[in-house]
């Protein structure tokens, strides 16, 4: 029908004739020539707005409208936008001015659909349409539900409605605030014909259930002041503030902020444009929803549907529960109380939401670090345990080594002490007997006593030597004749050597320079090397066990000691490592001896090494720097 009207109007020429023709032929033609859907509507939309585009309302609606136009069709129509400015410019001849302006402006522009946001000025809009674009279908972008019922619309005008009732807002407040007793209306005075005129009809119902504190129609300053002293069981419903009694104008969205900030109770609003400005939010009308639905209806018509076939229905998309998270927090309102499907805005992103990747990365890093640290701790602990164990074993071995050495030496010590002791006892008895005779032999007795003195001195010597050997003072260095040291050790080991049937050849060079050394330590080295040699030869045939101890001077003027054995010698592998602790070729023993020996020699500025002997066995040699003569 719309299409036919449209085609008709293009065929017929002048404007005045159109209305008549529309009335006379409209239905008849439509009924007879329906199949001739000759030409599609021009793909263009004229968007008529009643308000000033500076309002957020219009901005949100037109943005949604454009977005829908662009996204919901493959062939987006061209959109013309006109602001009628009826409120601001409604002078007597304003309609004529608009008409002549638009007639010239759109002389060469075909309009497919008119979308009107000016539902309050519906007659004005329809008059304009009939004058300039007769027969062009009109989409009314959002009509308040109750108002729509009262409208008597021409058949080529369609649209959609939305609920806008005070009880919805109050019900939302009631649901969110348990114990709500009072409803505070804040805003400009609500008037018949105004945007919220239906609220006036809702009021008796509200009063039946709540005490209504009506703060509309005050000056803005007084309103703000009153809002600060609201009772605890109240909620504020902001009904828009544009002009106060003093004639001052306000942008309703801006005014909502002042209201919500002044109020000592939560403020509920009815428009999405007010959300985010201090109010809790509420069941709000979404201008974006209106724009989107309007675009969808307009596109349907452009795509061939007849406006008459699109019933004016309520759009659920427009009235939506939207809340400000910050205000919910401020008033301690639990999200559980919000209506199903509520949109919560301005939620402070949680640290997780805000720093998702960073937290993930840090967590991963932390986990890795923890693992690493745990690993290191574990390793450290293991190492520590190993160290403790090693230390304990070292101590044990050192003790065993010492015990073994003491054991070895003790036989020699006992022998060395017992010799003079035996002589002393013997001589003492002898002396006593000579004196006890009838004719005491004083000469013999005194000889025996002299011998005792000698033996006593000898025993003292042994004790001195022992004391020196057990003295631990490492810095106790003195000039030592290396040959004396060798002789002392060999004396101590004499029994050991005999017991093992070792033939000992000692070749000490006379007149060697003295060395500055700790005598005891030096003797320990020699003792150890000789003991090793004896043990090394335990598997050698009895007649072939030969120990050769040699002293001498090197070309560079050092004192040299060599201890040779005729044992099995040392294999190449052991040779490389035998000065390391715990490396031993012996079945018994701990392998500490040589490492200690080397440490001692090196502490004295010397060197200790080993080489193979010919035809078999090993030669341990060490050199020590000589003291200046």
């Amino acid at each position, binding site marked *: 029908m719309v299409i036919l009207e449209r085609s008709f109007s293009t065929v017929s020429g002048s404007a005045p004739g159109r209305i008549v023709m529309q009335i006379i032929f409209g239905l008849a033609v439509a009924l007879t020539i329906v199949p001739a859907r000759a030409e599609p509507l021009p793909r263009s939309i004229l968007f008529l707005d009643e308000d000033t585009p500076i309002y957020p309302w219009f901005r949100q609606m037109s943005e949604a409208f454009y977005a829908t136009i662009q996204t919901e069709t493959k062939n987006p129509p061209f959109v013309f936008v006109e602001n009628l400015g009826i409120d601001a410019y409604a002078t007597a001849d304003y309609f004529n001015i608009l008409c002549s302006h638009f007639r010239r402006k759109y002389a060469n522009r075909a309009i497919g659909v008119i979308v009107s946001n000016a539902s309050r000025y519906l007659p004005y809009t329809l008059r304009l349409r009939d004058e300039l674009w007769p027969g062009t279908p009109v989409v009314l972008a959002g009509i308040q539900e109750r108002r729509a019922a009262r409208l008597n619309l021409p058949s080529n005008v369609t649209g959609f409605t939305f609920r806008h009732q005070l009880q919805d807002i109050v019900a939302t407040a009631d649901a969110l605030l348990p114990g709500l007793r009072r409803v505070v209306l804040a805003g400009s005075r609500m008037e018949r014909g105004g945007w919220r005129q239906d609220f006036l009809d809702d009021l008796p119902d509200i009063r039946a259930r709540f005490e209504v504190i009506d703060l509309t129609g005050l000056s803005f300053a007084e309103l703000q002041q009153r809002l600060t002293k609201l009772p605890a069981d109240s909620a504020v419903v902001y009904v828009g503030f544009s002009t106060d009694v003093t004639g001052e104008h306000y942008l309703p969205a801006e005014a909502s902020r002042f209201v919500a900030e002044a109020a000592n109770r939560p403020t509920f609003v009815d428009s999405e444009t007010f959300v985010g400005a201090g109010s809790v939010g509420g069941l709000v009308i979404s201008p974006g929803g209106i724009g989107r639905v309007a675009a969808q209806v307009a596109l349907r018509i452009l795509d061939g549907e007849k406006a008459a076939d699109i019933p004016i229905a309520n759009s659920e998309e427009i009235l939506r529960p939207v809340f400000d998270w910050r205000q919910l927090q401020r008033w301690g309102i639990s999200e559980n109380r919000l209506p199903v499907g509520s949109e919560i805005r301005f939620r402070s992103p949680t640290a997780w939401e805000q720093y998702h990747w960073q937290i993930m990365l840090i967590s991963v890093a932390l986990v890795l670090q923890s693992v690493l640290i745990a690993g290191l701790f574990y390793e450290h602990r293991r190492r520590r345990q190993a160290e403790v164990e090693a230390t304990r074993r070292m101590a044990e071995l050192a003790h065993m080594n010492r015990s073994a050495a003491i054991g070895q030496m003790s036989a020699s010590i006992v*022998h060395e002490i017992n010799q003079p002791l*035996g002589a002393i006892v013997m001589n003492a008895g002898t002396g006593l007997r000579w004196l006890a005779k009838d004719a005491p032999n004083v000469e013999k007795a005194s000889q025996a006593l002299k011998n005792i003195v000698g033996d006593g001195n000898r025993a003292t010597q042994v004790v001195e030597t022992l004391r020196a050997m057990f003295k631990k003072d490492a810095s106790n260095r003195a000039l030592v004749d290396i040959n004396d040291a060798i002789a002392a050790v060999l004396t101590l080991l004499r029994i050991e050597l005999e017991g093992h049937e070792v033939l000992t050849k000692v070749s000490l060079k006379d007149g060697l320079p003295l060395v500055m050394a700790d005598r005891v330590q030096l003797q320990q080295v020699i003792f150890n090397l000789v003991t090793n040699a004896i043990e090394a030869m335990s598997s050698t045939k009895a007649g072939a066990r030969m120990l050769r101890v040699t002293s001498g001077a090197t070309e560079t003027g050092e004192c040299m000691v060599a201890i040779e054995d005729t044992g099995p010698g040392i294999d190449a592998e052991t040779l490389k490592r035998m000065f390391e602790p715990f490396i031993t070729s012996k079945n018994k023993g701990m392998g500490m001896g040589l490492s200690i020996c080397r440490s001692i020699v090196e502490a004295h500025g010397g060197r200790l090494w080993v080489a193979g002997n010919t035809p078999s066995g090993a030669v341990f040699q060490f050199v020590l720097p000589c003291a200046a003569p």
Partner: protein
Amino acid sequence: MSREPLIAVIDDDDSFRVALVEALSSLGYGAHGFASAEHFFAGDGTGPYDCIITDVHMPGMSGFDLKRWLLAHDAGVPVIMITADAEPELEAKAAAAGAVCLLRKPFQAEAVTDRLERVLKV
């Protein structure tokens, strides 16, 4: 006894050997000292000895070697072994070798003479 018993003391430790010889002579024994078994065998023209007191450990021939040698040559002269060592079980070894006894230094001269009297009376 027709004559005073003659005893050979073999010990490489000079001072003890001298002391023992002196002690024995103070007790009325004839005693001669030798620094080693080898010296003993080389002899000093005296002898034969009624008893041999010998150190166990000596350079060259040991006390045990000496005893073995004596046994091998059917010499029944009693042997008393002495030692300055603490080595255990030497007594048993000495007994096994056929020695009269083993005395550990230090000991009183009377310990020797007690043994000697028993040995020489038999």
